[in-house]
C-alpha cells in the first residue's frame, strides 16, 4: 500500500500556511535566517506552529526550509545545522501534540550545480545531514520544496528517501507565459516523471504563482506521476502599498479553489507566501462544504 494512503484515504488533507511572513510579524528582521530562530526564539516559532494547528491544519511543516549546511554556512551557522533541524522538528511536534502530523521542510541550497557554484557531493552531504537530523528528531515525513533544478531535486530526494520516511518533492513553477515551468525550465511532466523514477511518495507544486494557476499544474502532475499531489499556493500576487507588500487574494477566494484542486488530484492543500491561519480556516470550511 502506498505509504501516504493512511493519511489521505479520507479525502483532502489540509496543511498549513506561510511561516516566514508570520515570523516577520513577530519581529524577525530581514537578513536573519528564519531557521536560526529555532535556537534563539523557540517560543515565537512555537506560536506560529500552534496558530496553524489551532486553525485546523492536519499537517504542519517545520521552520527548517533553509537549514541545510550550505545555506547555513552563508549565515555563519554551518556548525549548528544538526541543532537547528532537531529543534525545528521538536518545536512543531510540541505544537502538534498529536493533533497534526509534522512534515519536515527541506528547501534548495541556493547554489547552482550547472555553474559549478557547488559540487553534487556537497549537496549530497548537506541534504543527507539535514534529512537525517529531521528524521531522528521524529518527523512523520520529509518535504523537499520550492525546487527548480531537477538535478538538485534528485539529490535531495535520494537523501530524504535514505531515512526511510515518506518523501514529497515539490517544485516552484513560476516561469514562462503560463507560469508552468520552473526557473530552470522544468515542466510538471518532467518533474513528475523524474520524481516517480526516484521513488518518492508524492509530487507537488508550491510557491510560484497565485492559486488559480495550480489547478492545471495539479492535473498535469497527477497525470504524469500517478502519485498523490501536494499543493501549496501563494495568496495571489504581491502588490506594493505604503511601503509594504500586500497579497491581493482573500482567504475565501483562495479556498474557492479547494474543490477544483481536489478534483484535479490534490491530496494535500495548503498555502505558501502571503497566507495566514485565516486561509487554513477557510480551507477547512470549504472542505466541509464539499
Amino acid at each position, binding site marked *: 500500500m502506498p505509504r501516504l494512503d493512511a493519511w489521505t484515504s479520507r479525502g483532502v488533507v489540509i496543511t498549513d500556511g506561510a511561516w516566514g511572513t508570520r515570523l*516577520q510579524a513577530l519581529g524577525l*528582521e*530581514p*537578513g536573519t*535566517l528564519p531557521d536560526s530562530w529555532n535556537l534563539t526564539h523557540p517560543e515565537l516559532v512555537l506560536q506560529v506552529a500552534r496558530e496553524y494547528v489551532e486553525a485546523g491544519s492536519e499537517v504542519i511543516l517545520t521552520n527548517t526550509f533553509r537549514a541545510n549546511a550550505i545555506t547555513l554556512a*552563508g*549565515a555563519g551557522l554551518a556548525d549548528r545545522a544538526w541543532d537547528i533541524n532537531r529543534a525545528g522538528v521538536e518545536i512543531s511536534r510540541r505544537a502538534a501534540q498529536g493533533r497534526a502530523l509534522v512534515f519536515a521542510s527541506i528547501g534548495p541550497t*541556493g547554489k*547552482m550545480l*550547472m*555553474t559549478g*557554484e557547488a559540487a553534487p557531493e556537497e549537496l549530497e552531504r548537506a541534504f543527507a545531514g539535514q534529512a537525517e537530523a529531521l528524521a531522528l528528531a521524529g518527523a512523520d515525513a520529509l518535504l523537499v520544496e520550492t525546487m527548480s533544478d531537477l538535478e538538485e531535486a534528485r539529490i535531495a530526494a535520494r537523501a530524504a528517501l535514505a531515512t526511510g520516511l515518506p518523501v514529497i518533492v515539490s517544485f516552484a513553477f*513560476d*516561469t*514562462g*507565459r503560463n507560469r508552468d*515551468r520552473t*526557473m*530552470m*525550465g522544468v515542466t510538471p511532466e518532467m518533474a513528475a516523471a523524474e520524481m516517480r523514477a526516484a521513488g518518492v511518495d508524492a509530487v507537488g507544486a508550491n510557491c510560484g504563482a497565485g492559486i488559480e494557476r495550480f489547478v492545471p499544474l495539479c492535473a498535469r502532475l497527477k497525470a504524469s506521476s500517478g502519485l498523490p499531489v501536494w499543493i501549496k499556493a501563494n495568496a495571489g500576487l*504581491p502588490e*506594493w502599498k505604503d*511601503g*509594504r*507588500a500586500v497579497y491581493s487574494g482573500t482567504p475565501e477566494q483562495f479556498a474557492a479553489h479547494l474543490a477544483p484542486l481536489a478534483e484535479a488530484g490534490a491530496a494535500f492543500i495548503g498555502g505558501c*507566501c502571503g497566507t495566514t491561519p485565516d486561509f487554513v480556516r477557510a480551507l477547512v470550511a470549504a472542505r466541509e462544504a464539499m
Partner: protein
Amino acid sequence: MADLQKLYDAVLNGDQKSAVSITKEALDEGCDPMELITKYMVPAMDEVGRRFECEEYFVPELLLSARAMKGALELLRPLLAASGAQPAGRVVIGTVKGDLHDIGKNLVASMLEGGGFEVIDLGADVAPERFIEAVQEKKADIVALSALLTVTMPAMRRTIEAFEKAGIRDRVKVMVGGAPVTPQFAREIGADGYGENATAAVALARQFVQAAHP
C-alpha cells in the same frame, strides 16, 4: 581559415570549448577582435535572448551561452584594452541589504558580462555605502539592484536615497529586478528602469549606455 559562423553557433549553443578554440584560431590568423565581438558573438547573444523570450531557452541555456561568450571575451579583452577600446559599460551589481539570495543577481551578472559589460559584483546583503564606494571607485555607469523578498524591497528605496545623499544619483543609472519587483515599484522608488529577467536587464543596460553616448 577559422570558420567564424561556428563562433556564432558555439555561443548560441553554449559550447565554451569551441567558442574559445575558434576565437584563438581567428586571432592567430589576424582577425580583428572587435569584429569577432560585434559580427558574431553579440548577434549570437541577441539570438539567445530572443529564444529566451520565446521560451525556447531557459536559465540553463542562458548560463551556458553566457559562459561560452565569457570564455571567448577573456581572450579578446587584453587585445581590446591594448587598442584603447572600452567595455560596453561598467555595472555595479548586488543584492540589497538584508537579502541573502543571489541566483537571480548572478544570472544577470553573467548575461551582462556576456553582453560586453564590465561587471563589478558586490555579492548579496550589500549595504548602500558599499554600492556608493564601488560606484565612486570604479566610475560605474550603471547600478543593478536585486531583491528576492518582499521584505527587502524597501532596501532598494533606501539605497537610492543614499545615492542622493552622497551626491552620486545623477552619475549613474539605477536598474532594479527580482521576483517580487514590478515596474510600478521601480517608478515609485525613483529607479531609472526595471528588468523583468536577465535578458531584459542587458537590453536596458544597453539603452542606458546608448542614451549617454549617442
